[in-house]
């Protein structure tokens, strides 16, 4: 493998971005009502040129009202979960770490359930409450993981697992004792579902995503060193306590963001980093942008499949990632063990 240079990074990022755009455009084409590429191109062109009144109103609604927001949301969630997964894998020095191992998603789920119980009428309550729940769970895990002024990976992992299982138990309790009617939607949410339209405009979500990934990226070189051990990293000049804190916060924000709008989509945060490592090596300076783009691609594809495979019924996207993710996970595991 060749050494990493800015040029190589640019080439990889550009290539993946190109694939992402291609996948997105194709995804716009598919749905219960298939739109041909020619028509699609014409619609996009007309919109760009301000001639949107020429577009058939059905297509307008379907493409801009249904598919496009969903695809953008899928990209955001995919990128967020993948980078969070890669970050937690470095932070906890554990290749099996995923964004949910520290209980962030359980906190978000609990927030979502509570919002359904307390404020079922207001539309914006659920994602907001989910984010608050995610933040609260992260805070708890943070305090459990502190040892002598900095975060201890082992304590974090234990604290996270304990918090996750405790919150899951609370969620189970609530789901069985509270009136079942309102919580039917929770089943979808728990599996990961992109049909909820986010009350926060997508552009804000995108902004938070890019900023947070950027912040994590500033520690990329340090993360490389952290992977060989904390003592070693410190001896090579890494401010270990600061890096761990930044990565913990950044990854928690990303996870909270993703989970609060789409529920707990599984396997992405765990697998995309590993797949990207297979292709591009484990240097985080290229891994972080690669997993962000790779995760976006993965979720867009998964979501497109989820809404077309058994059309007109739509599967929750989490079901799709599980069906595809599990075999990939087994493959990766076997490869690693051989």
């Amino acid at each position, binding site marked *: *493998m060749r*050494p*990493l*240079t*800015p040029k190589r*990074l640019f080439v990889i990022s550009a290539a993946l971005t190109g694939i992402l755009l291609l996948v997105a455009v194709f995804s716009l084409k598919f749905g219960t009502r298939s739109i041909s590429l020619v028509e699609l191109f014409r619609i996009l062109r007309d919109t760009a040129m301000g001639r949107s009144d020429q577009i058939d109103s059905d297509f307008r609604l379907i493409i801009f009202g249904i598919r496009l927001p969903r695809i953008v949301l899928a990209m955001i969630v995919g990128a967020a979960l993948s980078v969070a997964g890669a970050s937690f*894998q*470095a932070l906890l*020095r*554990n*290749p099996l770490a995923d964004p949910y191992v520290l209980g962030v998603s359980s906190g978000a789920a609990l927030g979502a359930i509570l919002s359904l119980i307390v404020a079922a009428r207001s539309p914006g309550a659920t994602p907001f409450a989910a984010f608050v729940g995610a933040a609260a769970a992260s805070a708890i895990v943070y305090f459990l993981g502190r040892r002598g002024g900095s975060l201890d990976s082992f304590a974090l992992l234990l604290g996270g697992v304990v918090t996750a299982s405790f919150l899951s138990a609370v969620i189970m309790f609530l789901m069985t004792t509270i009136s079942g009617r309102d919580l039917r939607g929770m089943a979808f949410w728990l599996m990961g579902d992109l049909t909820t339209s986010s009350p926060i405009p997508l552009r804000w979500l995108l902004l938070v995503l890019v900023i947070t990934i950027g912040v994590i*990226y*500033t520690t*990329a*070189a340090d993360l*490389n*060193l952290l*992977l*060989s*051990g904390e*003592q*070693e990293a*410190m*001896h*090579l*000049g*890494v*401010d*270990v306590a600061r890096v761990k804190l930044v990565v913990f916060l950044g990854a928690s924000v990303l996870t909270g963001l993703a989970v609060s709008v789409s529920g707990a989509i599984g396997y992405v945060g765990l697998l995309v980093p590993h797949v990207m*490592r297979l292709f591009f*090596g*484990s*240097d985080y*300076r290229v891994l972080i942008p690669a997993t962000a783009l790779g995760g976006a691609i993965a979720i867009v594809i998964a979501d497109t499949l989820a809404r077309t495979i058994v059309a007109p019924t739509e599967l929750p996207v989490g079901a799709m990632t599980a069906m595809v993710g599990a075999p990939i996970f087994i493959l990766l595991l076997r490869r690693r063990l051989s």
Partner: protein
Amino acid sequence: MTVQDQTPAQAPAAAPAAPLTRPGPVRISVDLASYAYEPEDGAAPLFTLEATSFEVCQRELVAILGPNGSGKSTLLKLISGTLKPLSGRVQLEGLEVSRLDARTRAQRIAVVQQETSLLFPIRVWEYVQQGRHPHNRGLRFESKEDGEIAGHALAEAGAEHLRDRWMHRISGGEKQRVILARALTQQPLLLLLDEPTLHLDIAAQVDLLRRLRRLAAASMYAVVVVTHELNLAAEFADRIVLLDRGKTLRVGTPAEVYQQDLLQQVFGTLLHVDLNRRGVPKVVFSGKEA
């Protein structure tokens, strides 16, 4: 050279061996530094390392010697700046080591670990290049110059042929050389090694110490090695710091330090000290019970 307070109990039998090279200016100065680990219940601290003073000069290889629990690793950590001394100071070219930020410290001091546990597969050259990290700010990628420095370090460590291999596929001895190469890539003033010979076979042990000796003599490095291998230390070190249960018993050349009574008392076993033709002491362990 500064010698410890306590004078040797008896004059050495033969004339001390002339140092192999002339030592350069003082690199590390340990000045009445001590350390203690806090016990649980707020009782009086147990001194792991009592106040000690000595200096290490450029082009010197100093061995810190002693049985297990004598405080060798603690002393090394004080020198590397990982621990802050309870009293006294450890200074590197006039700057207190523990007060430096990690990056500045890493530019001047390189610590060679015994082993490395890698999470994901990485190639040797990539691993070695990480040694340039303290010198590169932020998100800069390694330049061609960095690559050359890494290559040079690999050569000095005798690991150039391992360049494109995977770290998890090389042997223990080869890995030790690669770790050394990474430390050399930092272009430090001081090289610290904690029991580097533990997992190596005898040929690898000798090779490593010889290499360290050569590096110290030829370059700007000062090398401090913690070990309990008496004979290797005697063969390759310029000076020995002898520790026993936290106390520094003697600092001096191997011939000065390796006194039979002293060593028997420190290591708690019957032994016999000979001097070979070059004046380097050889310790022979007896099979008899004390």
